[in-house]
């Protein structure tokens, strides 16, 4: 379910590092909790973001959820396709529906994030908490 080459946050974002850039998205668990996603608010290219601070938000019909940047750096690309087709986030959250690419300003931050295994057990535990 959760790709081993990704790193994860407890707020349900993922990041995949490609050289000096991190590709960022939300997890399968996040999209499932939100239900049908109807709108995605993406950052502007060129924006500076900080690990743990708001990067954008996703909306279902009756909820808004902030997306927090899993890594710090400059936004170098955003996935504009999501603006007109937010449903992609439900269909392929770990692939096609990435949100933004961030040029890493502090690559060592990756160490603060969860492995796929740890994230899996984290959402497993959170899931049984209800």
């Amino acid at each position, binding site marked *: 379910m959760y790709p081993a080459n990704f790193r994860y946050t407890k707020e349900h974002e993922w990041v995949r590092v490609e050289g000096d850039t991190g590709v960022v998205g939300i997890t399968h668990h996040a999209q499932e909790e939100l239900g049908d996603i109807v*709108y995605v608010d993406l950052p502007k290219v060129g924006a500076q973001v900080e690990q743990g601070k708001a990067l954008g938000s996703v*909306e*279902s*019909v*009756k*909820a*808004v959820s902030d997306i927090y940047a899993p890594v710090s750096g400059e936004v170098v690309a955003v996935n504009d396709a999501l603006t007109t087709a937010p449903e992609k986030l439900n269909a392929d959250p770990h692939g096609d529906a990435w949100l933004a690419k961030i040029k890493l300003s502090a690559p060592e931050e990756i160490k603060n994030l969860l492995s796929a295994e740890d994230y899996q057990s984290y959402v497993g535990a959170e899931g049984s908490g209800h």
Partner: protein
Amino acid sequence: MLSAIGVNSLEELFSHLPAEVRLNRPLKVDAGKSEYEIVDYFRARGDENANGYASFLGAGVYNHYRPVLVDTVVSRGEFLTSYTPYQAEIAQGTLTTIFEFQTMICQLTGMEVANASMYDGSSAVPEAAMMAMRVTGRDRILVSRAVHPEYREVLLTYAQHQGMPVTEFEYVRDSGTVDLGDLESKIDGKTAAVIIQSPNFFGVVEDVRRAAELAHKHGALLIFVFAEAVSLGLLEPPRDADIVAGELQSFAISPVYGGPFAGIIATKEKFMRQMPGRLVGETKDSRGNRAFCLTLATREQHIRREKATSNICTNQALIALMATVFMTVYGKEGLRELAEQNLAKAHYLGGKLKQRFSGPYFNEFVASTNGRTPQQINDALLKRKIIGGLPLKKFYPELENSMLCCATEMTRRDQMDAVAEVFAQ
């Protein structure tokens, strides 16, 4: 019922309230009255007000005929006694009429989206200004002094704790239109929006395009305000504006001493998500039939809480329905003809009085009082059962011997002749 609950008396239902909070005496409110006595009381209060007077007051509240159909429709319990249409399956009546309302407001204003209503025109103005702040990321507001003075007061109340400095710019003393030179000297790269009203508070029609060009040149939005909706039957829609904030009282909403009225905010599609207030959208039901529902609710307070576009919640659905029925009854030809009648009446009266301003006017204008005070003229008019225009000194110290006079389709020629006579004395 008490035994099902497991108590012995009604009083017991309140036994958990701490003794110190209980009211241990009857309310000092008179004993209940019968329906007849209630009607009688309010009739008597109505008789203490102006009754049977002709009126030349406008200034944001206009005396237009209310087609009978309006009350017929809004008196139906299905509209009157329903709530905000959260449960779309059993609220299609309200939802459909709001969708039609939004459409007609777009047709009238030349905008692409309109919300389901705001409290009134005065509160729509600060809501539009706050929206412009969100869109532009800037914080300064420039507002014309020819915008309704009470709307400006409301804007200031809202602005003071939003970090939203508001600056006024002048009107040209001869024409009564906005002073574009003064606007140009005050606008800069921090200006979020320029606010103008047309017809403005003096009844004068503004050059919207030039104001918009100036605002856009500096990256600011133009907010267009209207207080006399009937004017839109004849005037070019404010297509160059970015946000329209208006008051619909003219559309079959009784004056009732100032409210309830209904405001609107309309804008371009690209700003839709920054718009406050309820919005109805078209969709389908599970059987594939057309259906309507409240949409883009994530902008609103009940979901986004402290990050919402506004705290606005319940607003003016039933009043907006009055306006919807009004627009339906008059329709395409009627609204134009109605506006033409207003224009003709006001210009008949205007031709007989001394104009303070030279700018084009719709159904109200500022008259000079020829060396007498507005009070003297209005006192003389009251003796003839006529309520004269609004003396302007209270709002504009520089317009001492001036009053704002309005004539609508309801104003009769003989009444206007009588006013002219008193002015000429």
